């Protein structure tokens, strides 16, 4: 396969960026999308040009590092991560536009690499259960109904890649935040911090400059882990409940 790539190139955070065009030849349909970019980079290095910078690590769809918008879609046309997207999803002769996540809370570091530390700060604001090492009771002391455990797991599957923010027309981090809120708030272990967790995480999310939800649904469509849009609804409910509860204290 032969492809034309139009790639966002931006030297650093302060520089202006622009799309640059490259041709890649000899692409195998079995290649992953990132392996295709590897091929391009090998050529660029030998030509003495700066290779395209992009975040990637596990290349098996779980670490959440890879983050490309391909033809206007976060992680490209399949519902998966960029690293698990294979070239068989494209056709010989295609032109592909490759851009970084775009959101003011995710500033570009270089080319296709963005700074997603805002996500870490949202977790730091309350996305945990306070259980210092050594303080834990016997694991079977608190049975958790299977449906609750499964529901918590579904939300806990979030890999923090940021595709939800990239896809959202408002650059909102509601799906990311709600996934963690729901994971922990569904479990009995998370109950003592149920209210403060959702209030603090949402406050931090706002603080970071993410947009709000207009229920466009793009986030859930882009999510490689299938976190449902109803996750946001549940978080809204938790948030409203928390404001009432906390006000009564």
């Amino acid at each position: 396969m032969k492809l034309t790539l139009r790639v966002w190139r931006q030297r650093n955070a302060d520089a202006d960026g622009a799309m640059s065009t490259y041709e890649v030849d000899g692409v195998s349909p079995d290649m992953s999308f990132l392996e295709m970019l590897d091929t391009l980079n090998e050529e660029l290095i030998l030509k003495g040009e700066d290779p395209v910078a992009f975040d990637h690590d596990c290349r098996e769809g779980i670490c959440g590092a890879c983050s490309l918008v391909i033809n206007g879609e976060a992680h490209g046309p399949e519902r998966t991560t960029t690293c698990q997207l294979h070239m068989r999803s494209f056709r010989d002769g295609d032109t592909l536009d490759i851009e970084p996540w775009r959101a003011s809370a995710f500033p570009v570091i270089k080319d296709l690499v963005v700074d997603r530390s805002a996500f870490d700060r949202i977790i730091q604001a309350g996305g945990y259960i306070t259980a210092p090492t050594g303080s834990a009771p016997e694991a079977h002391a608190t049975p958790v109904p299977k449906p609750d455990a499964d529901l918590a797991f579904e939300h806990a599957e979030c890999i923090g890649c940021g595709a939800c923010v990239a896809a959202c027309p408002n650059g909102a981090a509601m799906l990311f935040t709600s996934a963690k809120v729901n994971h922990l708030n569904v479990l009995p272990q998370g109950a003592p911090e149920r209210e403060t967790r959702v209030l603090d995480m949402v406050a931090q999310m706002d603080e970071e400059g993410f947009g709000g939800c207009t229920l466009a649904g793009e986030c859930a469509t882009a999510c490689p882990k299938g976190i449902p849009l109803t996750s946001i609804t549940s978080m809204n409910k938790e948030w409203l409940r928390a404001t009432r509860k906390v006000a009564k204290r």
Partner: protein
Amino acid sequence: MALATRTDRRPSLARTVWDSSVGKKAVMAVSGIVMLLYLVVHMIGNLKIFFGPGEFNHYAHWLRTLGEPFMHYEWTLWMIRVVLVAAVVAHAVSAYQLSRRDLRARPSKYVHRKARASYATRTMRWGGVILGLFIVWHLLDLTTGTVHAGGFQEGHPYQNVVDTFSTWYGNVVYIVAVLALGLHVRHGFFSAAQTLGAGSRTRNRALRAVADVLALLLTAGFVAVPVGVMTGVVS
């Protein structure tokens, strides 16, 4: 960037709600639902126009005497008006502030653009602006009569309505606004339900159906009046 630190002293409920994007959305949802309820009543009232001037004018007069003898003439109506104005203002201010936040959060667009959200979703902002402007015109036209075409008569709403919809622009403005309303309600109702946490995987299908039915009923109910006038059913 400073972290929101955990402290037992928290701002008041109102402060928390107004300062948060989620809270402000809840304000929009509640004020939207207030307006929606009003619109349903308003639409039912409007349909009385098909039963002749007597019944329609009597209904309009009754609105002013609602609650008597406990209430004085027009007191109840004014109370409703105050609530409605508050709802409109809350809705509009929240929408403005949230939109500003949203636009700031995504300053640069993708070079390769791909819109996927539904039409109703994407037109919420402009739809809202259109509806806002319409309300102003609508009040000046049929409540105060300031911009009314053909001699506004206090206490004769039937004739006033017929006058308005006897002009081409009266019909155009009204029908465009009602269509915008339909789209706005379609996404707005569902969205409000989610904001207030009423949605769930099992309930969302029903909520979407309710939103569609509501949007359709309101559109049809409101459009019926100008259509009635135009076709001569109401004259």
